[in-house]
């Protein structure tokens, strides 16, 4: 007990890297001759508690952020009644959802219907476990971390499909089939985009990618702009957010896969969508923006705070696109992935491979080669996009010509119609009295 007290009193301020704290706890258990598995269990529990509490808070905060930011974009205020600045609005929403009756259609596929929201929530949380929150702060430092996150993001779509199929509703089935089609399509560009980064940084370990960026003082976004665009678009398709929210498509299929869900089951879908958005933002923040590293700042500010800041910077981008853009049609969205993003990602991959080869073979210093590559890749991305727009851009049968304006119009003279009254039609008053 005294040892625990010392632990708290001596280390409470050490928030720079929370792994210090858990290291201290492990040391404490070892000193007390605790069993080996206890160390694992305690550190795993600590990490899990940290991540789950972050996600819980983030899901609640994000509802507020999303509604406030979008409200500002839509020239209105957003929630501002419950609590200061409307901060308690998500709590009120959650309480309302909990009180609502959870309805389940009689024809629904009970088990699938009930498990889908839960299965949808899990991948988003699991992604957080492999992300590095600080120099030593990764709960599971998986070697093939990049593939791990790709695998997990594809699992969520399966849960969405299960929900849509289990509802046994035509609209829900539409949403489910759209999700599957989008998953199959957008998995490819997102894998290819991240593959370029893996090639460039030479590691699939997410901590390794961050360390690479910290070592060369270069966020990979600067060196690899095209994969960022591709990954951003494909992940917003996988996240079901406008302009690719086809699985919900409120205005078309009335909510899509969750049209039959109500109460807290719907709430879980809603929360899981926000959690997945945070997860993807965190992935982008890690691999493109350098995670916990930010030049010299991470020596002063705790790395995880920088990381959270970056997560929300990316999340703002998601909210922004959601607040601005209309929705694609499903065939347009799929064609966009196949005809635009997949070939672009392949070309980018070839370029990156050549660059890495040149860098390795010549051994030029990073200070010279990275700015050069940044310029080359940005120019390449720009040129590629422009070329693709030229070649593949939407060709409308009659592209908008300006409207014609008429200040005078011809009125065709109609053939004179003989008034019917003259032909001995029944008098009006007679009809009235009848």
């Amino acid at each position, binding site marked *: 007990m005294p040892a625990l007290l010392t632990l708290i009193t001596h280390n409470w301020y050490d928030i720079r890297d929370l792994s210090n704290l858990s290291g201290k706890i492990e040391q404490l258990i070892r000193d007390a001759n605790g069993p080996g598995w206890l160390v694992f269990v305690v550190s795993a529990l600590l990490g899990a508690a940290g991540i789950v509490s972050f996600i819980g808070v983030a899901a609640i905060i994000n509802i507020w952020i999303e509604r406030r930011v*979008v409200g500002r*974009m*839509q*020239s*209105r205020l957003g929630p501002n009644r419950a609590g200061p600045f409307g901060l308690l609005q998500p709590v009120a929403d959650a309480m309302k959802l909990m009180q609502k009756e959870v309805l389940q259609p009689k024809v629904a596929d009970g088990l699938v219907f009930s498990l889908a929201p839960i299965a949808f929530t899990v991948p988003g949380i699991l992604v957080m476990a492999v992300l590095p929150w600080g120099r030593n702060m990764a709960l599971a430092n998986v070697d093939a971390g990049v593939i791990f996150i790709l695998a997990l993001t594809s699992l969520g779509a399966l849960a969405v499909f299960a929900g849509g199929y289990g509802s046994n509703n*035509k*609209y829900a089935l*539409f949403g489910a089939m759209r999700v599957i089609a989008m998953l199959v399509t957008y998995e490819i560009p997102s894998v290819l985009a991240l593959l370029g980064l893996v090639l460039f940084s030479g590691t699939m370990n997410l901590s390794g990618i961050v360390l690479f960026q910290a070592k060369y003082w270069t966020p990979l976004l600067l060196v690899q702009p095209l994969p960022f665009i591709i990954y951003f678009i494909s992940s917003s398709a996988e996240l079901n957010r*406008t*302009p690719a*929210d086809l699985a919900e*498509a*409120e*205005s*078309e*299929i*009335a909510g899509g896969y969750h049209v039959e869900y109500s109460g807290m089951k719907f709430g879980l879908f809603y929360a899981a969508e926000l959690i997945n958005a945070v997860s993807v933002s965190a992935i982008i923040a890690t691999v493109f923006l350098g995670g916990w590293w930010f030049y010299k700042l991470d020596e002063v500010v705790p790395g995880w705070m920088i990381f959270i800041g970056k997560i929300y910077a990316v999340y703002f981008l998601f909210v922004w696109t*959601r*607040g*601005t*853009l*209309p*929705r*694609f*049609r*499903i*065939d*347009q969205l799929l064609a966009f992935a196949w005809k635009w993003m997949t070939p672009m990602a392949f070309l980018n991959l070839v370029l990156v491979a050549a660059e890495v080869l040149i860098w390795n073979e010549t051994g030029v210093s990073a200070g010279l080669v990275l700015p050069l590559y940044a310029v080359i890749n940005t120019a390449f991305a720009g040129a590629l996009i422009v070329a693709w727009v030229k070649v593949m851009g*939407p060709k*409308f*049968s*009659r592209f*908008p*010509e300006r*409207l*014609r*304006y*008429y*200040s*005078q*119009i*011809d*009125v065709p003279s109609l053939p004179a119609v003989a008034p019917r009254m003259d032909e001995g039609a029944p008098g*009006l*008053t007679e*009809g*009235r009295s009848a």
Partner: protein
Amino acid sequence: MPLKSEPVEVNIGPQHPSTHGVFRMVATIDGERITDVRMVVGYLHRSMEKLAEERTYTQNIPFTDRMDYLSAINSNLGYCLAVEKLAGIEVPERATVLRVIFSELQRIASHCMATGAFINDCGAWQTPVMYTFRDREKVLDLIEMTCGARITTNYIRIGGVAFDIPDEFLPALDRLVNDDLPQRFDEYDRLLVGNEIILMRARDVGVVTPELAINASLSGPMLRSAGIAWDLRKADPYCDYDTYAFDIPVGYNGDSYDRMVIRIEEMKQSLRIIRQAVHRLTGGPHKTEVPLALRPPEGEAYARIESPKGELGFYVVSDGGPAPYRWHVRAPSLINLSVLKEMTVGQTIADAIVTLGSIDINVGEVDR
């Protein structure tokens, strides 16, 4: 051999986010593609035409408010014109100008709503609808300032208008017409007209050919998008519209996109008309006094106006009594809707929603 699939019937509406009320569209679909559409109307039928036969001519004006509740003043105007034609009532100069100002204001409000709702149907997450609502609110503020109501105004009466404009009206109108709205419409141009996704979603979607448009007796933006220059304000002028200088925007392709652009352009033209009308405001009475229980001579009259949705016609038959013998409405929403099947078959569900949004129906007017 194509993959065989089973046709599925999907009920779009009567409770659906994008059917603009309680319109129901039974779509037979093959995958995502529509093979057949059946329209079901009548969920909002309130039997107005029959009820009107039991009420006096003046009492019937509120019914017209509740037909196309998004452009109530235009409906009022059409009905009052018909009754005035029937009873031979002269309208004072000031009242005519006021009618022009308010019906153009109402046109802006209605087109704002139509444009915003259309983009919402394209899937933008509420943003355009909020933008256009913001501007519609300002217009409605002016209407409220004058007659106290925002939606169901009951403003235009037989023989004139119900109230004269208050003193603060003209400065507010000047601000709106010369400062606020032109900026807003430029904003719409930037936000909507060149938007790549809207182009992809609305171009060549829901195409109406000129032949179909004429044969189906379409009117309003639906007709003009098909490339036919027809506007009753020019073709059959009422309220001295022929003396105002304004243009009729006409599209080429007859698709949903053209209809949206035409609506935005028409709002700009409405501003032009209002600017001219303000200078014509002379003194004088704002209405001719007519007896409450108006008894027009026996006969019939048809008056038509260019409402935001198209040709809104009122056919009023009098038997000399205080109530109309027959009162029929040529509702543009209903007639424009009649080509929905031709427009949507062969397209996807998403296109059908966009097409329906671009027709700009108002179920209150469809069902009456």
